[in-house]
């Protein structure tokens, strides 16, 4: 596992968010999103909102869109299940929602408690009417987030990019 801190793809994602004029960054932190969250905190044009549960972010960004702000929701795969009923808001109101999910429990996971949501994030999001884009190669993250952002904001639609554990490396807690 290479150190996430030396990776450049979080910077690529940040760039796509800037290009898309994304203003509200709602998140429950994950180690995979750590550098991106730092960059967003430093931006003068972005408002970062740490949530208590991921579904709050779905509602928050619906309000943002009503007020003319674009947003993004950052979470790890375990948060996907928390969003399901709230996603009816996005769907029924036909609002944009860009979600960036860093995967756990998907590939080489040591913690079995992450596996149920990790294995089911994609089908669950699909069942909830969210367009999903799985990305396994770090060189394809930028174009994938770009494509998802376009379909979210031009749709308008809910679109989620699932960033594989192959890219993030499996967490081991030294084991």
């Amino acid at each position, binding site marked *: 596992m290479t150190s996430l801190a030396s990776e450049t793809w979080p910077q690529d994602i940040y760039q796509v968010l800037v290009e898309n004029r994304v*203003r509200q960054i709602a998140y429950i932190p994950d180690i995979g999103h750590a550098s991106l969250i730092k960059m967003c905190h430093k931006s003068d044009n972005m408002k970062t*909102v740490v949530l208590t549960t991921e*579904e709050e972010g*779905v509602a928050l960004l619906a309000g943002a869109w009503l007020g003319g702000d674009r947003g993004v929701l950052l979470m790890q795969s375990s948060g996907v299940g928390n969003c399901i009923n709230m996603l009816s808001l996005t769907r029924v109101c036909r609002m944009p929602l860009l979600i960036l999910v860093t995967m756990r429990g998907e590939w080489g996971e040591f913690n079995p408690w992450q596996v149920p949501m990790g294995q089911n994030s994609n089908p669950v999001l699909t069942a909830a009417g969210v367009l999903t884009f799985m990305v396994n190669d770090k060189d394809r993250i930028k174009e994938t987030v770009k494509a998802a952002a376009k379909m979210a904001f031009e749709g308008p639609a809910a679109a989620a990019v699932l960033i594989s554990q192959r890219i993030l490396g499996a967490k081991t807690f030294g084991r």
Partner: protein
Amino acid sequence: MNPERSKSYPLRRREVVKELLAQRSDALVVAGLGAPAWDVTAAGDTPLNFPLWGAMGGAVPLGLGLALAQPSRRVLVITGDGEMLMGLGSLATVATQRPPNLAIVVLDNERYGETGMQLTHTAGGVDLGAIAAASGIPICNTVSDKKSFKSVIPQVQKEVGPLFFNIKVRAEDLPLVLPPKDGAYLKDRFRVALLGIDATI
């Protein structure tokens, strides 16, 4: 649990909402699902109302996102005790963001009104105003009589927030006054009224 208490509360929800919205000026209003959405609609349906028909627990975070996007406009969230209980964490998020333009009003009849008037936790003594205060929302109050309600009206409309008011209202069955139900229509009419016709492009 006290099943009788809220049947004799003096404040009536329809009048409370009507008075709160009488001088709403250019405020943006989010209504939680169920009775609060009907109350807001009974006070007058306008494009700058966003009544929810679902998304339980989402009224406060939705109001927060709107308040952050529109810092020069007053945002008023009017919701019920059951809806608020489902999204208590959002009060902590509001306190952390401290949007000065956000006011939250809970119409607390201690009941789940749309499902058969079953008691909520507030009938068992859970104090939403105290939860909001402990979360760190700077101005919080619980109101249960007409005199204190009168003093709260200008605060809801103008005082620097975020503010949270829990208003104890009588448990009563009232005629339904339904807003439009199509979410895409509610969203588009709101955005066009607020942002102009270009918002639809």
